[in-house]
């Protein structure tokens, strides 16, 4: 789809999908991918001059495998992009592959990619492949990926205040994506039917 102004959306999908976003000059987009799991989502973003895009994803996988592939191409000067995709896996496998591309002639771009994975059991796995394809030095780009399990000391601390083990785990899972959730709230997107923020 073509974006010319200011576009905000919470996206919840029911099947494997390829989504294309072409941001025209001076436009902006803020997209949240949540409330679904078990599919492959391919997100292609093309950024024109002075455009900016934020991509956030949160996936709670239980006995299901979810993959997200992002491809962000900075096609205009001064374009910006922030992406942050998080996966919580319970007996599940998540895959995240992200590419940021800045061609040689495009200047003053800024692009950041974050991927965080939380594994709730020994059978879960997370695959991550963050990539940068930068053809000039006049850019600011970062990418990071972390995978971890729940912190036993944090669970002990919460339990020592009276919450059960499961309540402590639930609290830490909520905490894991709390900042994305609060972004959805602060962005004032129409959240009708969005379970993530309806809690």
């Amino acid at each position, binding site marked *: 789809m073509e974006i010319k102004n200011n576009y905000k959306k919470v996206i919840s999908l029911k099947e494997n999908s390829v989504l294309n976003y072409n941001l025209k000059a001076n436009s902006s987009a803020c997209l949240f991918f949540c409330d679904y799991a078990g599919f492959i989502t391919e997100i292609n973003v093309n950024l024109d001059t002075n455009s900016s895009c934020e991509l956030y994803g949160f996936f709670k996988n239980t006995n299901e495998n979810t993959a997200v592939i992002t491809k962000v191409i900075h096609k205009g000067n001064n374009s910006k992009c922030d992406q942050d995709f998080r996966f919580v896996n319970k007996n599940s496998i998540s895959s995240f592959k992200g590419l940021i591309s800045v061609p040689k002639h495009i200047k003053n771009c800024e692009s950041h990619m974050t991927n965080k994975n939380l594994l709730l059991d020994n059978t879960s796995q997370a695959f991550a492949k963050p990539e940068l394809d930068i053809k000039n030095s006049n850019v600011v780009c970062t990418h990071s990926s972390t995978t971890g399990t729940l912190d036993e000391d944090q669970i002990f*601390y*919460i339990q020592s205040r*009276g*919450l059960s*083990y499961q309540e402590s785990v639930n609290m830490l899972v*909520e*905490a894991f994506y709390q900042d994305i959730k609060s972004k959805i709230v602060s962005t004032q997107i129409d959240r009708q039917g969005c379970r993530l923020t309806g809690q």
Partner: protein
Amino acid sequence: MLKIKNLKISIDNKEIIKDLNLEIKQGEIHALMGPNGSGKSTLSNVLAGKDGYNVTGEILYKGEDLLKMSIEERARKGLFMAFQYPIEIPGVNTINFLKSSLNVVRKSNKKEALDTFEFLDLVKEKAKVLNVNGSTLNRHLNVGFSGGEKKKNEILQMSVLEPMFAILDETDSGLDIDSLKIISNGINSLRSICRSFLIITHYQRLLEHIKPDFVHVLVDGSIIKTGCSELAEELEKVGYGNKE
């Protein structure tokens, strides 16, 4: 309130606590002093229910076998530990955490949950005693807190939860003189004939503000001496080495 009999605690076959016996009656304040590595924190962790220790012996809490209770069961039955190093939990709002904790404890004691307004009134009143400001409560739990703020937050949790038995694990370490006074006032405000305390500390300075009924000296996993509050003053002068 708490009766410890022939307690032995080891980790990976290394014995940390060797045959410890201790009785803390209702309303009493006991101070446990000792050098680094004497087993003070191991004891408090085991009392709070932390995993990973090999424990033998008996601990009775209000007549029940404490070692058979889960961590949360202990908390719900009024046992509270103020952590030596309070854990940082990003993404969990301090005041929401406190509300969840209080209501879960109240529920298990068949009391009605407090609504948001009742809860905020209660916290405001308790926070005032400890000079804790509102912005601290809206931050993530212990994240970016100074050492003093973390310790104050522990005591705030204690004063909101109103436990029957409180373990203060080196609550005084890392505090400046003013914070020590404020925290001591907070602890003293909770003194009552039905509440007991086990105060773990290296120094006598906290005990200048909170007068204990008994002082125990723990060295190398055993209590080597028990006395009244004067023992703490004596230790301050002669150190632990001379007491062995």
